[in-house]
């Protein structure tokens, strides 16, 4: 009953005209960046972070969240019609989605993708409504030792799942922590690594770092190659899947939704991993696995549902513990902090309007996305024809503007360009930026909680082991760190490792 009252309150907030407008802008931009290859939700969210400052926290967060789950919908359109993933979570959709389009079944592929996403998104929201308050009430008992260990676990899981050498991913995470500590020490206000520059006293901004590593670096990588687009030009008809399509897709949608939701909650997990895991699961369960890769609708329905469910699930650790499980949620944490709201166990009780408003807006956003992605599909197809040589200078222009507006400081534009070049070189020599960004956000919190726990325990390191939650987190982290030394474990890691931040 209480949940229903809270949901009612949430819809009261979400249905306010200004919040409906922000929600629409968010899901529209999300679909747009999902459709356009070369710009993802991370770049778009960091670009629009300064714009959210002008509105209320509810409006700002509603828009940012809309961009995230909107991009999950939009990404599938590009994968199916052009065979280029609009964003990283849609990589697997290319495999069977584009084959279906080539066989003249682009309509059902797009339809099942949007409808599966809607079903998964709805399930994830209901689960979020039920799980988040219970988890928040448990999390109130968390002390600095638990928070420290949870953050360590989040970073280790992300490095474990990052493609390539784990040592490289761990090195990136360490560099992220160091970058996050630049500026005044939060405990004794001592300047650290500022090199006498006043601009560094407050630390490096999240927006220039993310825009550089993901926006500018992505453009530099894309200019290296000629992007050939094999766009399906035939008119797209029969968007609603037929009975046989539904029969084949029901299981994958159900399994993808549950799998995606739980993988989304895990620290370091996310939409990319869940879509790959769902594809692998469906192929393994199928009686005719040879159809996969040749236009099997299950290969579209499962992963698309999984990535949307994961997008919903990822809000749980952020909203209940204040810990972002992935880079996108780290940006959302930045948006909360910019608005003076600290996500965590107390947020649901102290800011119920905000929490339930965001949850309700996500449901409304899912309905908006269904309308945007099915009847308006023709508009997105036209957009896909925009050549990259015109698109990328515009992306550069908007990144410059976004970074400048976030602080009104030219120094941040320099920082962005520097991180853009560093990010490009990093990717060329096989260093993924995702662990760096997550560690950059978690670094100051990690340090703060470590120092607090050591002060409270009077230097007793056993405090991290004596507390059960902390001990379990650290034990899992140790297993994941030591595991890859064993050949069989290493092989399994290589199978699941992905370019999360791509």
């Amino acid at each position, binding site marked *: 009953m209480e949940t229903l009252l809270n949901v009612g309150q949430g819809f009261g907030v979400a249905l306010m005209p200004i919040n409906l407008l922000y929600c629409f802008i968010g899901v529209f931009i999300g679909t747009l960046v999902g459709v356009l290859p070369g710009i993802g939700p991370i770049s778009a969210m960091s670009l629009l972070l300064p714009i959210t400052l002008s509105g209320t926290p509810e409006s700002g967060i509603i828009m940012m969240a809309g961009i995230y789950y909107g991009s999950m919908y939009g990404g599938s359109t590009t994968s199916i019609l052009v065979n280029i993933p609009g964003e990283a979570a849609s990589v697997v959709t290319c495999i069977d989605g584009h084959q279906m389009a080539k066989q003249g079944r682009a309509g059902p592929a797009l339809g099942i993708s949007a409808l599966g996403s809607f079903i998964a998104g709805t399930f994830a929201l209901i689960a979020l409504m039920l799980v988040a308050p219970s988890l928040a009430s448990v999390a109130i008992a968390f002390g600095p030792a638990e928070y420290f260990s949870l953050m360590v676990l989040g970073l280790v899981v992300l490095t474990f799942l990052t493609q390539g050498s784990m040592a490289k991913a761990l090195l990136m995470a360490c*560099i992220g922590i160091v970058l996050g500590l630049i500026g005044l020490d939060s405990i004794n206000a001592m300047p650290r690594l500022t090199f006498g520059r006043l601009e560094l006293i407050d630390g490096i901004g999240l927006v220039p770092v993310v825009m550089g590593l993901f926006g500018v670096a992505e453009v530099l*990588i894309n200019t290296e190659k000629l992007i050939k687009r094999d766009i399906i030009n035939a008119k797209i008809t029969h968007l609603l899947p037929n009975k046989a399509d539904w029969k084949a897709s029901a299981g994958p949608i159900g399994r993808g939704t549950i799998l995606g939701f739980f993988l989304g909650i895990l620290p370091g997990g996310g939409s990319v991993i869940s879509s790959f895991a769902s594809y692998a699961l469906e192929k393994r369960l199928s009686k005719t696995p040879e159809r996969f890769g040749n236009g099997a609708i299950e290969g579209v329905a499962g992963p698309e549902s999984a990535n949307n469910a994961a997008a919903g699930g990822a809000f749980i650790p952020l909203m209940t513990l204040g810990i972002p499980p992935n880079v996108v949620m780290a940006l959302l944490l930045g948006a909360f902090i910019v608005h003076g709201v600290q996500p965590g166990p107390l947020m649901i009780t102290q800011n119920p309007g905000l929490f339930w408003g965001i949850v309700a807006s996500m449901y409304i956003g899912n309905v908006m996305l269904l309308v945007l992605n099915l009847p308006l599909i023709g508009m997105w197809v036209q957009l896909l024809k925009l050549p990259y040589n015109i698109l990328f200078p515009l992306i550069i222009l908007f990144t410059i503007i976004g970074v400048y507006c976030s602080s*009104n400081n030219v120094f941040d534009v320099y920082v962005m360009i520097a991180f853009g070049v560093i990010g490009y070189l990093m990717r060329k020599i096989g260093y993924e930026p995702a662990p760096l960004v997550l560690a950059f956000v978690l670094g100051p919190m*990690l340090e703060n909680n470590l120092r607090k726990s*050591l002060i409270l325990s009077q230097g007793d390191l056993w405090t991290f082991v004596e507390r059960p939650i902390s001990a379990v987190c650290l034990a899992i982290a140790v297993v994941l760190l030591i595991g890859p030394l064993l050949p069989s474990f290493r092989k399994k890691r290589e199978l699941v490792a992905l370019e999360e931040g791509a």
Partner: protein
Amino acid sequence: MSDQDNVKLRVNNSELWGGLIGLALGAFVVWSGLKLKLGTINDPGSGYVLFYTGLLMCLFSVTIIFAAVTEGGPTFGARWKDARWTKPLLVIASLIAFSLALDKLGFLLSTIPLMLLLLRLVDPVRWSLAVPIALLAPLGVWWVLKRVLLIQLPSGIFEIG
């Protein structure tokens, strides 16, 4: 990857250089941590986390270097094989020139040439399209920010914009 693309103890081993840069950064962070004072385990100082993070960076870098020497790694040439490496270089040069000009010339006078360079240098867009885009996009953005959102953009020594 051919044998020529994978080398062990050679100057052009990209993995080796990645590890060496990480090691240098780690050593710098350790030194910075020490300089900032470590404090004690009961009362950790400002340099405590930096120092131990630096040590971890050194450890991971040594692991990368060890793997680069024993297993070998791709050469820089192999990393950029089949890539149009001059294109990102041109974009980087344009961005550096832009960053040097932004404060002095202001937003409009530095962004319009940047846009034109990007539109013409990488995969050339025809002049009749490049010039209007290079002019209209920055002008449009400038108008929205300055007139609608009331955000002051750098106007430079000529105070244009």
